[in-house]
């Protein structure tokens, strides 16, 4: 809603165009985090560490790009973590039997896209609340992956191109980061500069109005579900390449990290409000915190505690800022 009305009006200063709304708070948090950590541990700013952080961000950002679209249309997908594990196993199995990266990718994308399509159809056709529908899919996938394989699907193909997917570099930049950047840019342009993107916001803000103005709101939501699924397909292949195996136990809690990053980025769970740039900042904040905890030599279990506090705090600051704006 406010994204729709604010976007054109906010051209007063260059930063304002990007840092409108909650991103300002988040950018501030990110800056404070980076400065504090680098004072305490100078190696934070080493090239190796920055690349490590970016690589950590890539997986989350890929799925979060789709998830942002989905949450903007006022739906949510909790099955992405379970799907991520399943996709990795299926992709690896196909690679092992065909020795062809394109076929493996295709299988992964088809499966993950299929999961997205299923979720989307259940939500739009059967009108099941997406929180419940995707909890159901999550259970089915968690059970299904163990029926598919009891243990990790090992890498028997040793394809160089597949290993590069997770561990390769182009110049100094890891391949996953490039893939994430590509997906992010495509999603960003779609959401911000295309009619389709504006329709996605509109569906989330007021579905009834969208339907009455002659658009097929179900199609738009279905689109967002499938896109989220396809993103999971890419992320699943990268993850299995990084781990050199398809792990059925991978991705536990991944859905919550992704959703946390999206919410942290200022996207409203009620739909119609949010931005991919915020999501990028959200992912960065969460992963910088993770990295900082490791670099400072703190207990790694803090990696669960601190994001929890940050999500609540950032949302609260956002509410306070909104109230101040109203006055």
């Amino acid at each position, binding site marked *: 809603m406010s994204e729709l009305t604010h976007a054109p009006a906010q051209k007063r200063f260059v930063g304002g165009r990007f840092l409108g709304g909650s991103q300002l708070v988040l950018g501030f948090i990110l800056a404070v985090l980076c400065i504090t950590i680098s004072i305490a541990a100078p190696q934070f700013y080493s090239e190796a560490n920055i690349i490590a952080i970016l690589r950590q961000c890539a997986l989350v950002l890929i799925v979060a790009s789709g998830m942002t679209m989905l949450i903007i249309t006022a739906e949510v997908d909790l099955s992405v973590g379970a799907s991520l594990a399943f996709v990795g196993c299926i992709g690896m199995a196909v690679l092992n039997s065909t020795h062809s990266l394109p076929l493996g990718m295709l299988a992964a994308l088809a499966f993950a896209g299929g999961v997205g399509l299923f979720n989307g159809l259940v939500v739009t056709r059967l009108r*099941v609340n997406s929180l419940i529908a995707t909890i159901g899919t999550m*259970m089915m996938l968690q059970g299904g992956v163990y029926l598919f394989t009891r243990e990790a699907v090992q890498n028997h193909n040793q394809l160089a191109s597949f290993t590069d997917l997770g561990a390769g570099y182009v110049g100094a930049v890891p391949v996953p980061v490039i893939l994430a950047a590509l997906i992010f840019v495509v999603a960003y342009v779609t959401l911000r500069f295309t009619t389709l993107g504006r329709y996605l916001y509109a569906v989330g803000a007021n579905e009834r109005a969208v339907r009455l103005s002659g658009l097929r709101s179900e199609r738009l939501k279905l689109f967002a579900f499938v896109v989220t699924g396809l993103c999971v397909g890419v992320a699943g292949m990268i993850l299995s390449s990084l781990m050199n195996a398809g792990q059925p136990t991978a991705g536990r809690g991944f859905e919550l990290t992704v959703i*946390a990053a999206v919410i942290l980025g200022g996207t409203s769970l009620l739909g119609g409000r949010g931005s991919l740039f915020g999501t990028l900042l959200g992912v960065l904040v969460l992963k910088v915190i993770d990295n900082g905890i490791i670099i400072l030599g703190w207990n790694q279990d803090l990696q669960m505690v601190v994001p929890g506090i940050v999500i609540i705090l950032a*949302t609260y600051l956002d*509410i306070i800022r909104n109230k101040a704006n109203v006055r």
Partner: protein
Amino acid sequence: MSLVSTASAKAEPSMLARLFARQELALLVCLVLVLMFFSATVENFLSVRNMTNVLGQASLALTAGIGCAIVFISGEVDISIGSLLATIALPLIIIMNDTNSLLLGVGGALLFGLIIGVVNGYLTAYAGINSLIVTLGTMFIMRGGVYLYTGQRAIPDDASLDSFIALSDGRLFNIIPYSAVIAIVLLAAFGYMMQHRPFGRQIYAVGGNQEVARLAGYDVRRVKFICFIISSLLATVAGIILAARVGSAQHTAGLNFEFQVVAATVLGGVSLAGGIGSLTGMALGVLILQFLSNGLRGLGLPTEWQLVITGMIIIAAVAFDEAKRRRANGG
């Protein structure tokens, strides 16, 4: 919708008509069908032993489900209950190990649960943060806190108090597990509150239409605040039962528990939108899922199939319910 029907049902058309108009009947039919199917296919399924065992297993989800349903009815969600199960086991076991007193241990656990409920409730009702975000946050914080404190190791119950062990394997009259008795008593008490006490009706009103409830003079914030406290305290009781069952404070206790409870609650016809549903429905939802998983195990299916089938049934049930509701509303 059903808020109106349950409220106006106080005008009492007839007991029978009232019963048939309700969603609980459809759930009861489902439960009976599940029972019939498995009694025909699984040996000893209908034995008293198996029935009471399932009831004992269901007691966790039943107890926590009451709180989950009440929070749903008030128009909010609480997904922190799984982590809470692991968290409150720490004060419980540690205090019992130190003092050899069940009462002090339970008191400590309830105090912890109360604090968590106050935090969830305050942040949602008074600070105005979306409850999904708040409880997602506290879920992370509590789980991480438990990992930090325990170093990802279980803390065993060294006191081994008879009264504590009885919580897991003791049976009333040697038939019904104490944990099930606790769940049933709580269910009856809170069911009475929700249907017949002013506070229960306030919760329905707040969840049904917050603005109208506010104009009617209800303190919406206070109602929601108390709902979160109820939810946390009931999850604490479930956590105590779980700790008794496993005989230790496990850092992984209650992983995914919140999803199971949410699924059963929604299956029981409690709407995420607020104002709709009943504790009876929730209880039937829990029992259907529990008997289903017990029966499937009896058929010799691996646990993975139980997950798959449970997932399908949840989606199918909610879809069916939604279709029925749309037809009732004339498309």
